[in-house]
């Protein structure tokens, strides 16, 4: 009997993602929420690796963990009294929210499991061998960004530049 390493890895990282996202959501301390989010981002990066998306996995760690999460923690530190117990993170309307979100999750999973994925493109999702070796994707992504996706790439670059200048301007004290 061969041990299904791929499946074991998937379940380990899925458990890591769900539990740390739950810590992020249900913790009452904003800093604990940020740490939970950190582990959730790492777990999602690992799932990207399992799906053969090496470039996106590294981009996920660099940008989410190295950029966005640091930014979020800066936001926490700058916007509340860290030394006091005021760094609270309470929730409101918990019961209706659980009902609605639970309903959404139930419907989503029902739809996901009953839809014949791949029927439209004539592909059978059972044929995909996840454990097969995949090509490195970086070169092909770079080529696509410079050819087929050149216009969206330039637009998103300008969007990022504008957003960062705007953010720096809004955050100035004498703006």
């Amino acid at each position, binding site marked *: 009997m061969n041990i299904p390493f791929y499946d074991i890895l998937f379940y380990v990282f899925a458990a890591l993602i769900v539990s740390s996202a739950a810590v992020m959501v249900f913790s009452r301390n904003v800093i604990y929420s940020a740490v939970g989010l950190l582990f*959730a981002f790492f777990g999602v990066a690992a799932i990207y690796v399992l799906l053969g998306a090496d470039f996106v996995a590294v981009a996920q760690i660099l940008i989410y963990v190295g950029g966005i999460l640091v930014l979020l923690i800066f936001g926490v530190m700058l916007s509340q009294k860290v030394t006091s117990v005021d760094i609270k993170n309470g929730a409101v309307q918990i019961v209706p929210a659980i009902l609605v979100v639970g309903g959404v999750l139930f419907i989503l999973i029902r739809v996901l499991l009953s839809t014949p994925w791949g029927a439209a493109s004539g592909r059978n999702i059972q044929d995909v061998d996840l454990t097969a070796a995949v090509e490195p994707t970086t070169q092909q992504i770079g080529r696509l960004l410079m050819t087929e996706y050149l216009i969206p790439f330039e637009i998103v670059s300008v969007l990022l530049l504008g957003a960062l200048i705007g953010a720096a301007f809004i*955050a100035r004290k004498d703006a």
Partner: protein
Amino acid sequence: MSLTVGLHHFLVLSAILFSLGLYAVVTKRNAVTVLMGVELILNAANLNFIAFGRFLDTDLDGQIFSVFVIVTAAAAAAVALAIVLNLYERIKTVNLDEADSLAG
């Protein structure tokens, strides 16, 4: 749904991640935590892009789109945090329920 990992497993994981993010967005009172919920939702969307790209497609369109989503999320986080800092500057709180000066 079998125990061997297939497309459904990734989709269900993404749905759970989305639901947790949605719960944070609708219940949390702290603006920064609401932003964290938005990031969880964007991660769930990215996971779907890449899973569908792996299972239903031969080229890398899904991964390209997830790169665009990551960039847009970074821009959104920067602007939202600038707004949160300004909010704190003006009304000394980041509690979204108290930021109601536009309410009639």
